[in-house]
């Protein structure tokens, strides 16, 4: 993990559909990535659109599961089960040089 990432706090919201296979996979995968690369400097909210439709309506959702990176930098969206680690890191703009 690079020195510069220490103080950057990643704020993310993962929107899922209950305990469906893609959703649960997305949670497991994302959590693994976060623990590996962003341990201690990320805020992850996982929102079930069935349970909290109002929160879900605030965002422009296209397909689920969908990850929205709120900070740092520009808001970015990622769709899928987060199994492609490289794509996720790229989407989150995490410097994966050290990988």
């Amino acid at each position, binding site marked *: 993990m690079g020195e510069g990432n220490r103080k950057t706090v990643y704020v993310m919201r993962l929107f*899922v559909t209950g305990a469906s*296979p893609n959703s649960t996979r997305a949670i*497991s995968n994302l*959590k693994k990535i976060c623990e590996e690369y962003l341990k201690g400097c990320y805020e*992850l909210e996982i929102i079930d659109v069935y349970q*909290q439709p109002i929160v879900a309506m605030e965002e422009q959702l296209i*397909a689920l599961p969908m990850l929205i990176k709120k900070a740092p930098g520009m808001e970015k969206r990622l769709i899928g089960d987060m199994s492609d680690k490289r794509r996720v890191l790229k989407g989150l703009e995490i410097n994966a040089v050290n990988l």
Partner: protein
Amino acid sequence: MEKQVSYEELLNRNEELQWRLEEAAAMLEAIRTGQVDALVVKNGDTHQVYALKTADHTYRVFIEKMSEGAVTLDENGLILYCNSGFANLVQFPLEKVTGVSFEHFIAEESKRKYRRLLKKAWKQDTKDELFIKNTTDWATCCLCSFAVIGMDGGDRLSVILTDLTEQKTAQANLMIQNERLETSQKLVTQQKNELEGIVVQRTHDLYTSRGNFKLLADHIAQMTWTSLPNGEATFYNERWYNYTGLTEEQSMGLGWRDAIHPDDLAMFMEKYREALQTAETFEAESRYRRGKDGVYRWYLNRAMPLRNESGEIVLWVGTATDIEEQKKEVERKDEFIGVASHELKTPLTSLKGYLQLILMHQKDELPDTVKQYINKAVIALAKLQFLVDDLLDMSKIKAGMLNYNLDVINLKEVVADCVENAVHMTPTFEFEVENDTDFMIKGNAERIEQVLMNLINNAVKYSDGSRRVVIRSFRFENCARVAVTDFGIGLSDEQMGKIFERFYRVEDKKNMTSGLGMGLFISSTIINTHKGKIGVESKFGEGSTFYFDLPLVEG
């Protein structure tokens, strides 16, 4: 891509891209606006259909609405899904629960158990109780049921959490109740044992006291019995059986009535029934037949109610005392009084006649002293006459032969006559009279006069130095009342209760008073036969008011 691309070609490509972009945008729009039910995804050679509209909506509602917590875990124990029930249990917002390790919500004391359980749960369905903590570290006991859900891309573990707090509370309450029950059972047993001890002791006491009672009952001179509150006899002493000759079987219940003289039975039963109802001491005279010779002897019956702690009558205890001899004595005495008063009456009448003849003697002038003596003799004779008349009345009352005619008379006149008479006989007394109203009553003027004179004489006799007597007649309810008030020695409460009895005389050691104690008895008999009422109000040492009420004649 080759570098030499014609403008036209670029234009075409651009157009195609534009078109594809529009297509993608339209498709996305269709998905977003809910016009698509499902997406078909190419997965290797096969296509997989993903439903967009929720097919498992029903189950989701079930799970969301149930009070139990429902959680899905991944292989690392991370929470992938939880329902509102669980979020409520741990008091975290939903978005702060998902993605967090389940262990995070397990109370310290259950953590080891949880890890063991988790290992086991991946192999087979299992359940156990765990303490789940909330934001305030409050631990709630939950039954956690683990079950593996097979899914592509890895198995998941489902956990259903049932809050056992209520059940535990109920269980604890049940235990407390159980303990209480046991305690009270112990207490009951203890009390039972104590009670048994008491019963044994009491039975022994009772046996002793019964023995004592029977010994006593069998050896007293009276016949004794006990009966139930309804009058049925339950016990007789030996004397009863010896005298009446009845067997126990014959005497019990109401069988004892056979021993009573048929003429006395009605009166006896009436008084007995009255006593049973009013719970007052029963007293009656009756004759009982002696078994061996059929002779009837007079007995005085008395019975008292025996009450238990709460005041209810348990039984009546009665005695019957032989009063045959006393009865005979009284009869002999009455007979003697009757004969004696008759025998006295004749010489008394001639004595009175001769005294009148002497007074009327004109031939020789009598010396004043002689005249004085004769006057004194006349007064003494009048007193003697009163006494003899009283005695005669007594024997008549006793024989039920005190008869006289009743006429409508004016009570005012009777009172006036008596007052005049009293003034004449006791000139030293001051009589205050209030007698202004005419009261028509039905009665015998002579007898009423006799009563009133008796009251006036008593007032004079017990005046104790006071020289004042008040005589008043007035209306009292629907009666005329005549009241005689003196300011003499007065009566105690005990004396007042007995004053109208036969031969009762107020004991007065200072003033030896004369009389046989028959006056008030005769007076009360006379007033009773007039359907009137005689009475007294008195304060010891301050004087008395004797009065009688006689019913007014209507109209």
